[in-house]
């Protein structure tokens, strides 16, 4: 006999096998999910979920696809949250502190409550990366926020109305485009290809019979 637990999906009680994830428990209970289900592997942020264990005071957060059910778990899913996304032209913005003041001035209203960090299902130091963004230290903000899946739970808990994932994304794009070191070998290779430097080599291969290609492939040198 399977080990069963009680879960309360949006407050309604269901009895489900204890080895399921929250997402699995919803499906076992008969939900055919359309909202709140994306990659099912912890990368897309579609299944942001808030729960409380009966008798405990603390509200907990998680991704429903990555979290096993517990007995007496009260579950509310957050399939959508109205985040602010400002539009900008990546070719025109500059990696300067002023850009944050202009696009996301609410980050300067942070009261330091740290609710965002406590809410992050990825375990990121969200308040810290917002602090880096405030100072215009985009590189550090990018690094600290890198594993963000943009589920938006942090923003749902923020008394200052900050849209943390978008602030982080802007910081990462500014870092990637303007602050990270340039890759000379990449630029060179693109020029060489545009110059037609490899045309003959490739066309030579394309014209070869498969028997010759096989020989070339089976005897090619593999970099250590």
């Amino acid at each position, binding site marked *: 006999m399977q080990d069963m637990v009680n879960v309360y999906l949006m407050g309604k009680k269901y009895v489900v096998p204890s080895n399921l994830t929250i997402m699995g428990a919803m499906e076992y209970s008969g939900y055919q999910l359309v909202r709140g289900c994306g990659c099912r592997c912890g990368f897309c942020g579609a299944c942001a979920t808030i729960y409380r264990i009966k008798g405990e005071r603390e509200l907990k957060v998680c991704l429903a696809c990555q979290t096993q059910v517990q007995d007496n778990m009260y579950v509310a899913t957050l399939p959508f949250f109205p985040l602010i996304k400002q539009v900008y032209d990546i070719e025109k913005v500059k990696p300067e502190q002023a850009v944050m003041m202009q696009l996301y001035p609410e980050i300067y209203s942070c009261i330091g409550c740290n609710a965002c960090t406590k809410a992050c299902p990825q375990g990121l130091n969200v308040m810290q990366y917002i602090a880096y963004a405030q100072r215009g230290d985009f590189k550090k903000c990018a690094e600290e926020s890198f594993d963000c899946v943009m589920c938006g739970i942090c923003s749902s808990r923020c008394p200052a109305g900050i849209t943390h994932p978008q602030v982080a994304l802007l910081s990462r794009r500014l870092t990637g485009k303007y602050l990270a070191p340039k890759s000379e070998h990449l630029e060179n290779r693109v020029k060489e290809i545009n110059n037609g430097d490899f045309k003959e080599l490739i066309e030579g291969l394309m014209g070869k019979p498969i028997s010759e290609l*096989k020989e070339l492939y089976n005897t090619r040198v593999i970099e250590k």
Partner: protein
Amino acid sequence: MYTQEMLDSIKKVEATRSSRIGVEPRRMDADEKDNLLREFHPDYIVSQFTELKMGPNKGEKVPLELAAALQAHSRIKASDVDLSNPDYDVDVLVIGGGGAGSSAAIMAHEGGANVMIVTKLRHGDANTMMAEGGIQAADKPNDSPAIHYLDAMGGGHFKNVPELLEKLVCEGPDAVKWLNDLGVLFDKEPDGTMITTHGGGTSRKRMHAAKDYTGAEIMRVLRDEVINRGIPVVDFTSAVEIILDENGKAAGAVLMNMETHDLLVAKAKTVIIATGGAGRMHYQGFPTSNHYGATADGLVLAYRVGAPLLYAYTLQYHPTGVAYPSQIYGALVTEKVRSIGAMLVNSEGEAFMHPLETRDVAAASIIRECKARHKGVDIPGGGYGIWLDTPMIEMIHGEGTIEKRIPAMLRMYLKYDIDMRKVPILIYPTLHYQNGGIKIAADGMSDVENLYVAGEAVGGIHGENRLMGNSLLDVIVFGRNAGVSAAAKAKKTTVGALTLDHIAKFDKELADAGIVTDKVSPILLPRYTHGNPRYEAK
């Protein structure tokens, strides 16, 4: 978290670990690989395939589940919608909001087209988001597009369409540069040199990465760029039928709101199918590493309007899906784990193969080790797994490497109290990629005029087996390519009267072929009930 049997086996793995460090297991030769594939790769199990009885690929073999979806009825009748009064009227309609669809939309927009994206779930709910390990591009001094070409050709059993593969490898570096210039944060040395590693079957280290969130990093940047450009995205809306015009050219699609089930008509001068893969078809009962909506929709849409498929019989089973714990069964364990040093080890602690054989060979070898040689580790509830010896990574590259290079993997397992820095993890092949798909020409157009295809829905680029990192590359190269081509073609196109006559015609062909079915397609979403007897009985 591990069972006693697993813990006992781990002792054997630990006992051989130090002697395995620095020793590269022998690679198989061509004959060994051929024999192994024939005997153990799922693509070669004859009973799992059937011949198509009608349509452009009549007489060719495809997986049973795909045949059932291709040879099914439409979800709609032509009379269900009013084609004379479209809800949307655009130059370029992109179906699918993943990496290929978003790249296509950006380039179509760049080309001056009025472009719109429809996507079944949210924008970015796609296999691109879940691609972990990296993206290939031959941009190092010791590498060249020609070497990349040969690697991919050999990995694909020499079945790759040469013109498509040429495009993939020659436009690879420019694709990576484009992403870099959009602000994608690639892993780099302080001097700007891209940090690159091997993938299975590569002869040069050309795997570029953004930790093990490579696809997620690319997808969130592309999505941001689509929004910044003001390209309309209609989410939670799937395409259920392609619309043709009176001259047989693609001219739009019938859309369905996934929540209200309302039908809408989108008219377009050109259409791009970028609907992705098919993991949620669960071919041969395999679990999958794919996102929730990967149900081969694009193949069904294209087939019904007469576009032929190419290599639809070949699927990729990623060698390292999660075998245990059950909560994440089938989830992807990135190949990068092997790229940076972890070996595949059986229950006796033996490294039974080179860890970086191509994916088809590696998957078949793991299946053989379990099924024929009985050296898998039993999983409670059925099935078996092989050890991926992750602690080797930090013995080779130093403490902290796992957290820095593969944080998503570490995080996924830590949620189940498995610390891969200290103990190995159990893996088994998982359904990962649709090697075949819709046949296209080098400009991205299918055999139906004005119907373009990009990304995983395309067949032919990768032959019968794709190399790691060539899919992220493919969605960018062929996504951009389709966007450019479709925008240019739209300028020269005048749409004739719209029609859905092909639905009745297809139904007649089904009847003529003797196919009696109550199935409708595309499938759109899988249904899971996790063994609940209430639903299983029905």
